[in-house]
């Protein structure tokens, strides 16, 4: 008893190293919460500005439809407004998140952040959480402004949460993987620009797939954007999507799982 106290007091008692190793869901979740804090504090100076920009973007998008199509009908406006919710989600995953990683590589903090004792996927989900909070308001604002301006009749299903989660997950996992995998962060910047351009202009998100050439329609059957628009549209309105949403949900789920698996591989890989 006495010797135990003495040992503790003089700090001579050797602790087994394994006792230092943390594993399991509690460790994962604690690390996730701490990394959310880390991300928020890291963005705190830009946060108000970014949210304000997202709100303006959303409102601008909604009002911009009226310029693209003169006097859109209610159905046309609903189609555009629901399609437009997909754009900020894709931007979040394919542009914002990868650019954070690219920036860390450029300013030399990447090795520090990835040397922290945090499970890699907890780090990814923490980034996804914070950037969703930054990136998603514009989708909501676009919808709200469009609903008010064009007097839309939205019918929001609780499934919209699942839909949004899947869309954001697919986009962010893809963005996160290539920003880690590509050695040169400048390549990442270029790819983000290219991807978002393709998604906005050449994916059947804000227009029906029939307007695309047949081969591109066929390609899009298996790619996320069209299905992302489907699940968002289907869970925000009634009757705007023909047929069941199930195939779209299923395909997006497969994409999300595959993308996470690849992300997990890419971000735990060592050079």
């Amino acid at each position, binding site marked *: 008893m006495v010797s135990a106290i003495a040992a503790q007091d003089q700090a001579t008692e050797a*602790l087994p*190293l394994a006792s230092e*190793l*943390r594993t399991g869901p509690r460790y994962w979740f604690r690390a996730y919460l*701490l990394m959310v804090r880390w991300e928020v504090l890291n963005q705190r100076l830009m946060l108000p500005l970014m949210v304000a920009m997202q709100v303006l973007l959303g409102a601008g998008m909604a009002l911009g439809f009226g310029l693209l199509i003169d006097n859109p009908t209610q159905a046309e406006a609903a189609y555009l407004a629901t399609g437009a919710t997909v754009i900020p989600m894709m931007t979040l995953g394919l542009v914002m998140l990868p650019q954070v990683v690219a920036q860390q590589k450029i300013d030399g903090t990447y090795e520090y952040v990835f040397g922290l004792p945090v499970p890699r996927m907890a780090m990814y989900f923490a980034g996804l959480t914070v950037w969703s909070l930054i990136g998603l308001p514009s989708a909501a604002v676009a919808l709200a402004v469009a609903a008010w301006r064009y007097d839309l009749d939205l019918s929001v299903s609780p499934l919209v949460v699942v839909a949004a989660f899947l869309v954001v997950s697919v986009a962010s996992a893809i963005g996160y993987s290539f920003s880690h995998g590509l050695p040169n962060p400048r390549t990442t910047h270029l790819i983000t620009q290219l991807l978002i351009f393709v998604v906005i202009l050449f994916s059947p998100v804000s227009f029906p797939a029939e307007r695309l050439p047949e081969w591109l329609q066929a390609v899009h059957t298996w790619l996320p954007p069209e299905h992302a628009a489907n699940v968002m549209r289907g869970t925000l309105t009634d009757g705007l999507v023909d047929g069941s949403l199930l195939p779209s949900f299923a395909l997006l789920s497969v994409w999300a799982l595959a993308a996470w698996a690849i992300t997990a591989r890419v971000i735990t890989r060592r050079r």
Partner: protein
Amino acid sequence: MSTATTPAPTAIQRRRWDAALRIEHVEKVYASGIRANDDISITVEPGEVFGLLGPNGAGKTTLVSQVMGLLRPTGGSIHLGDIDLIEEPEAARQLTAYLPQGELPIESLRAREAVELIGRIHGGDADAVRARADQLFELLELGQWERQMGAELSGGVKRLVGFMMAAVTPRPLVILDEPTNDVDPLRRRLLWQEIRSLADRGSAVLLVTHNVLEAERAVDRLAIVNDGRVVAQGTPGALKAEDRGRLRLEVTVEPRAELPAFPPYLADPIRVGRRAFSTLLEEDAARALDWVRDLTADGTFEEFELGATSLEDTYVRLVGGEADAEALFGEATGG
């Protein structure tokens, strides 16, 4: 300098691990054929401050990345205690506290927040982390910057905040890459005390630096690496042994004068700008002095200095090269 102000250590600091860092025959050859390090073997015992010295590009940072589980060696082994850090990179990160040489991502974090958050990410509980942060801010006399964000801190203070981030939750292995860069001389002394105290508390401390003068005083043992290989290893005294009985001659050449040929009893000079360094045996001191006085009198040399050799001379002898010497002496004499 008073040491009486040291607050009593709290419970969390009284940890000890019987875990040496054992790096054995580590090598990294990239697919391109470039060899980043070659047969590196180093052991850092708990309670020890071990210096890793070498010029820029010697492979110091590569080795650190390998220990941290960020870079996979192509050969050899790295163990901390009985844990294989190459096979378990996640364990490596949990057991290691790290101060990188480069930028810290704390631009918009207040100093105190950064220290406490990293302490918690390293597994410390909130109370212990707060108590230890109090202690560190006091010991390093940084209280006035506690609430400043990283972007508002000077380079030296930011470095010290980075040190506190690595020291707040005790880890079995602590890796500090150029911890004293940009730190003012007074706080530098405090910092060295705290680095020593990390080792006294049972951590194995690996100190990466190219500042030989500081390392000589601060480390228990050191390895000098060059071109990815360990060229010498031992205590500072043992490494200097070969240069014992030798003196060092430093001359400054007049701006328009050529560096004259050195007599054979002087070692080949290493020239850095207008200065040149050489070593000689003690018994040659008298004729060397005559030689250098003459050349100073006729205006070839502006000034000279004859003195005892230091670890620097050993380092220069082992690492050689003018470019390296420039980095070395620029740092050592300028700071």
